[in-house]
């Protein structure tokens, strides 16, 4: 009997194609937007996570916390800065870790007539391995550069081109600020990572920077590579405690691992997922109202048929089932079309972003089977849910009145 009812409902739907099509359109748009929204958010997450992981993996970031005026007063006289000594102490205490202290210097690099103004990064040889960022020609900073406050400089690809054009930069003399340096290496092209153009970086030894450009041994931050990913949390904690102890018991530093950043991203993505998914589901609910509307019209139009069916032996649940199957059929067929449209819409959006957003080239839509399943099942639920009221109405019609309905 179910098969017969299903064939009937297909026949009824196809007998008024325009109406059925318009009703389905609501469901199609709803399902498509659920799938597209989810795919775009999912793609965004993948893009962000990739961006972060391209910074290098298994990383810890250490920087100084901003203290309030009150705290500064309270802790006056204690050892409160993040210093180069801290980096050396960490190396000594945790020999497994690779530590790269970082200082930023604003300055000018000048080679003959050509110059470049911007940020210069003072760091240690470990930086190259930690960031997975290597020289194309020449060499990166070495231990000897650090130990002898060598005035050597490594240029990013773009900077090398700006200063020397097609000429080889290796061995050239240039001035960083007032000090004479010589070029020991040029970096491989890396492009923009998370908002920073790596090809525009200039590297000098951290000790040289402290000696020639800074009056103190304060450093801005440290990047630390942890060899064992499973020990990230443990190392983060130990390192933090170690630094607090070195800073006379004052917690004036932050230690964050990538997991913390990824966790923050995850929370943000969930917010997007809920907001955008919510909008899409509202669209689907509006589609459901369309189904309910059209099913109510159908029930009224077919009052005499319902009366006849009841007269010849259709039970309430038979009529209920008949109209419920019809509304569900609308939502199932609409859901199928919606899945297809949603996939197209998601990839279309992906391409649009790739073309219009700088650095968005690899933000593509990521369609997960679960998203499709959720959207489709929700559509079917909408068909059943919004079809229920018209179907109940139909099943409760009085047969004698329904038979003579004009």
């Amino acid at each position, binding site marked *: 009997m179910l098969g017969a009812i299903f064939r009937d409902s297909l*026949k009824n739907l196809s007998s008024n194609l325009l109406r059925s099509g318009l009703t389905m359109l609501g469901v199609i748009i709803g399902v498509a937007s659920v799938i597209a929204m989810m795919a775009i958010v999912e793609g965004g997450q993948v893009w962000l996570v990739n961006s972060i992981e391209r910074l290098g993996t298994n990383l810890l970031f250490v920087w100084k916390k901003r203290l309030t005026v009150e705290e500064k007063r309270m802790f006056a006289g204690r050892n409160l800065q993040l210093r180069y000594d801290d980096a050396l102490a960490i190396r000594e205490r945790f020999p497994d870790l690779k530590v790269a202290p970082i200082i930023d210097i604003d300055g000018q690099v000048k080679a003959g007539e050509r110059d470049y103004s911007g940020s210069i990064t003072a760091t240690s040889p470990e930086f190259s391995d930690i960031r997975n960022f290597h020289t194309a020609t020449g060499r990166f900073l070495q231990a000897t550069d650090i130990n002898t406050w060598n005035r050597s400089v490594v240029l990013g690809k773009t900077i090398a081109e700006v200063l020397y054009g097609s000429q080889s930069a290796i061995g050239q003399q240039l001035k960083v600020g007032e000090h004479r340096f010589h070029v020991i290496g040029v970096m491989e092209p890396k492009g923009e990572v998370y908002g920073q153009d790596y090809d525009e970086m200039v590297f000098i030894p951290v000790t040289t920077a402290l000696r020639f450009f800074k009056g103190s041994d304060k450093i801005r931050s440290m990047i630390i590579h942890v060899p064992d990913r499973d020990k990230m949390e443990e190392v983060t904690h130990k390192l933090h405690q170690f630094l607090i102890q070195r800073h006379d018991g004052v917690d004036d530093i932050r230690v964050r691992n990538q997991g913390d950043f990824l966790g923050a991203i995850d929370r943000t993505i969930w917010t997007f997922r809920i907001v955008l998914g919510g909008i899409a589901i509202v669209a689907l609910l509006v589609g459901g109202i369309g189904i309910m509307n059209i099913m109510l019209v159908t029930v009224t139009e077919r009052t005499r048929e319902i009366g*006849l069916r009841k*007269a*010849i*032996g259709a*039970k309430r649940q*038979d009529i209920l089932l008949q109209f419920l199957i019809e509304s569900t059929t609308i939502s199932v067929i609409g859901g199928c079309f919606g899945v297809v449209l949603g996939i197209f819409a998601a990839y279309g959006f992906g391409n649009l972003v790739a073309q219009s957003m700088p650095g968005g080239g690899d933000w593509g839509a990521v369609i997960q089977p679960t998203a499709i399943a959720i959207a489709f099942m929700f559509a079917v639920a909408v068909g059943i849910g919004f079809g229920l009221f018209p179907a109940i109405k139909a099943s409760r019609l*009085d047969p*004698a009145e329904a*038979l003579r309905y004009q």
Partner: protein
Amino acid sequence: MLITLSHINKIFTTGEVTVHALDDLNVEIKQGEFVAIIGQSGSGKTTLLDIVGCLSQPTSGDYWLNGAHINKLPDSELTTIRNRQIGFIFQTFHLLPRKTALENVQLPLMYAGATSRQQRDRAVEVLTMVGLQDRMNHHSNQLSGGQQQRVAIARALANRPALLLADEPTGNLDSQSGNEILIIFEELHRQGQTIVMITHDPPIAQRANRRITLLDGRVVTDEFTEPRAQPVLQKI
């Protein structure tokens, strides 16, 4: 007794207006009778058809059909009784337009829970009985009025009902098609089928072997006659 209607009242209230459609009506009908119920419009014959057909319940009084005390039964059991015990034939045929003759006849069998094989076999059988074996796969809107009414008769007979209940079965037909329908009724009657036919047309009522005349919801006359043979009947 197939049908016993005892002190049946049916009162409709629409706003301030109260209509006493059936007024202490008492009728008994035996198995195998062919009864015509005659009356002007407003005499209560449609209301009586609804009650006899288990489509609605009387306001008061008792109704037994084939041993079942109908006015004590819940809605769901009335549905089963309509399906198994009663075959309806309507003035406007009430066929489903997007279905073939065969599918229309299968409908009550489907609701009775028959398998599709059983549905088909029985539908073919009754359609053959009413002479439509060549038209089984036509959609109902491709059939003439007389043919449509014959499909409706086949549908009414599908579950071998105790009672065939016809509401102005010839009302929408020309006299020849109407006559063909009445010939089928007479043949069914001859085979022992109980038929209750509602009509406002006395010559058609003459074809039955018992005529009950209603006026203002009461039985005014109840006469038995042997139906006189129609010339057309002899021809066929």
